[in-house]
């Protein structure tokens, strides 16, 4: 189970990233944030976001148009 879940379904670029940034503030170091999104652009964007910020993208998957990302917050 993730420490925190963000429902970003229905939101378009750049809102999933902006809301994820905010949500990460609530997550403890080394904790995890789960994000649910429907924006197909979010896949490339969360990869770039994680590379740039040093947070780790543990997994991402897609199920019936809903993308799920699990991010581990850098300490």
């Amino acid at each position, binding site marked *: 189970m993730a420490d925190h879940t963000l429902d970003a379904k229905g939101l378009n670029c750049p*809102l999933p990233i902006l809301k994820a940034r905010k949500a990460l503030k609530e997550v403890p170091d080394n904790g995890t944030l789960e994000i649910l999104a429907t*924006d197909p652009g979010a896949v490339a964007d969360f990869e770039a976001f994680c590379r740039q910020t040093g947070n780790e993208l543990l997994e991402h998957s897609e199920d019936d148009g809903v993308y799920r990302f699990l991010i581990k917050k850098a300490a």
Partner: protein
Amino acid sequence: MSAEEKSMSIIVTKGSLDWAYPPFILATTAAAMGLPVTMFFTFYGLPLLLKKLNLQVTAAGNPAMKMPMMGMHMGLPNLLTAVPGVDAGCSIMMKNLIKKKGVASIEELREMAVEAEVRMIACQMTLDLFEYDKADMIEGIDIGGAATYIEVASQSDINLFI
């Protein structure tokens, strides 16, 4: 955290609804990715700092502006864009589309930029030229000129002119 040494500046020169998006999207996203961001608002970009926004689009001189309608994309002939009410109608359509597609409003993005401590500089010369009052602008902005911007730009890794 390699991002921490990088920073970005954007010169914002246009204030229509469509042109307001790129600077605010990039500023908020860069800030979310850990970059210090400065936005310099000049000429028609300056009114984007007014407390109350009522942004409009025009199809005049913009043949690429086509709206999805009835399963196709429709544009407006230039001549029609001069008819009173047409720009207002286009603006309402665009705002409806923005809401429907889950795209943030400019007001929302601007608020997030302020929250993310994006530095916003209003161009003093434009304030004078178009007779705007700092009191009508949102709180927390700085006032500056070309030299203020150049100082920021010379220390930034990414400098955009939009």
